[in-house]
């Protein structure tokens, strides 16, 4: 049996989660702590991927990163191709899952007593240092939960990935796409095996999460 889709899916979702963390944690902090014009709009945009049909997201993403799209053309100038590569799959998985990370982390930041941060300010600590020593340690559980959910969502993405990366065997065919492919070809045994692997991986992650969440700080 070809295990390539499993490895690809793991790689894609790890990278997608890293990307999500990089963008999502600052976004969550801004949404939890700052008041500015356009804040509600930003919050709406963040949640949108959660409620829009994946094909709609995939379509617009493709418009952006396709060889004629603004991002696609800019990257093309450097010889980097995005659409219908495994990198597009990473982007697709990240877009699909970022809302879960942002919402969970934002809720976590919001439960951190503002007075703790104010106290830290009067004690002379920089905002950066306050974030790492006070805010994040007190919100880490929500951040962890958001990260695991985002990972699982990225791992299971189907629609967006299909739209922007296609389902090229040995190249962009992730685990969910591979399962669909096997079913279409009546290879039920393989479909079954891949599905069980998918379940095992996500279950393992969720169990690990609940174990970690029992730690204090």
């Amino acid at each position: 049996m070809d295990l390539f889709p499993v490895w690809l899916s793991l790689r894609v979702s790890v990278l997608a989660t890293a990307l999500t963390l990089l963008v999502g944690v600052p976004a969550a902090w801004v949404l939890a702590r700052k008041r500015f014009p356009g804040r509600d709009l930003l919050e709406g945009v963040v949640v949108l991927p959660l409620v829009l049909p994946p094909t709609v997201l995939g379509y617009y993403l493709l418009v952006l990163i396709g060889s004629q799209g603004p991002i696609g053309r800019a990257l093309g100038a450097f010889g980097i191709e995005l659409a219908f590569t495994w990198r597009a799959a990473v982007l697709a998985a990240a877009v699909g899952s970022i809302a879960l990370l942002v919402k969970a982390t934002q809720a976590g930041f919001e439960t951190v007593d503002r007075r703790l941060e104010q106290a830290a300010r009067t004690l002379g600590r920089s905002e950066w240092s306050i974030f790492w020593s006070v805010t994040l340690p007190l919100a880490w559980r929500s951040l962890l939960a958001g990260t695991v959910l985002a990972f699982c969502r990225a791992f299971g993405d189907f629609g967006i990935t299909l739209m922007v990366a296609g389902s090229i065997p040995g190249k962009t065919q992730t685990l969910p796409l591979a399962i669909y492919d096997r079913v279409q070809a009546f290879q039920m045994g393989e479909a079954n095996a891949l599905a069980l692997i998918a379940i095992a991986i996500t279950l393992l992650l969720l169990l690990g999460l609940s174990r970690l969440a029992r730690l204090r700080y």
Partner: protein
Amino acid sequence: MSKDLILDRVSKHFGSLWAVHEVSLEVREGEFVCFLGPSGCGKTTLLRMVAGFETPSAGRILHDGRVINDLIPQKRNFGFVFQSYALFPNMTVFDNVAFGLRARRIARARIAPRVDELLDLVGLRHYRERYPAQLSGGEQQRIALARALATNPSVLLLDEPLSALDAKIRVYLRSEIKRLQRELGITMIYVTHDQEEALSLADRIVVMERGRVQQMGSAAEIYRRPRSSFVADFVGTSNFLDCRRDRAEGLVAFGDRLLRVAQPLPADGEQVSLAIRPEAVELLETPSELGGREPRNVLEGEVETVTLLGAVVRLAVLVGRELMLVDLTQREFDRRPARPGDRVALYLPPEGFMVYPGGRG
């Protein structure tokens, strides 16, 4: 040059609400000042502006001769103590107290002795390795004090620091804070709605109401010469009598009675409000026992309740339709006991009145 803190016509509004309105005052280096007032009077907003958590909408805040309106809290070097303690729950007592020291790039070897010194100062060195959740409220607030003092702030700001604590602990910590202030000679601004706290702690009290300063002065000045009926009512207890000016000099009409008042009456207005402290009212043995007192100022009434308040006994006496409070020392009360239902004669000395124009609110 001394490091005075000066507020110059400082105002703050939230939308259309003026939380603080043109407050001007000076806090001298080493002084203990209390902002006193009911909730919503703007005292906490004022303190938060001094701390740098809020920016004034108008006016200037100066420290050490510099305008600090836009200075971030990190750069002010003012300590802050919250009502809710605001200790970092994820850190031990030691790490909490060391928190500010670590921001200052102080050599690691010098941090531990400094933390121990502060823990000794508040008497909690043995709790070094505990977490805040393992301490009582009073202990947590002592750690919060140590944490705020660790970095040698030039001003310590305290926002209702004792309001969440039990009465006994409150009184104990009050004296602890006073002791720390004296020992360290640090400038303190202390916000409270508890007049007893303000009277016992402050070198100077700033009484606030609806965003404005009503009166500023020592505890004795505020208590003895409240400048408005609000202050007379809020600081300590006062009996109020709504009176009318009489044609005769020094007399006012209270119902169908005339009372003599030693203080000059306000220049204009028909209505006069008299206030008198419960301890200024005397209980006479008999209405005829005057002994040189002003005969007009004797009022008769019926005792409604007798309440033991510790050192004093408070009688509530119904005079006409007004309830008058009378405070007696235990000794006075033993000499002249009173029970609910007793008819008594009260003497209101002419010099015991505080006089305010107009009726009350």
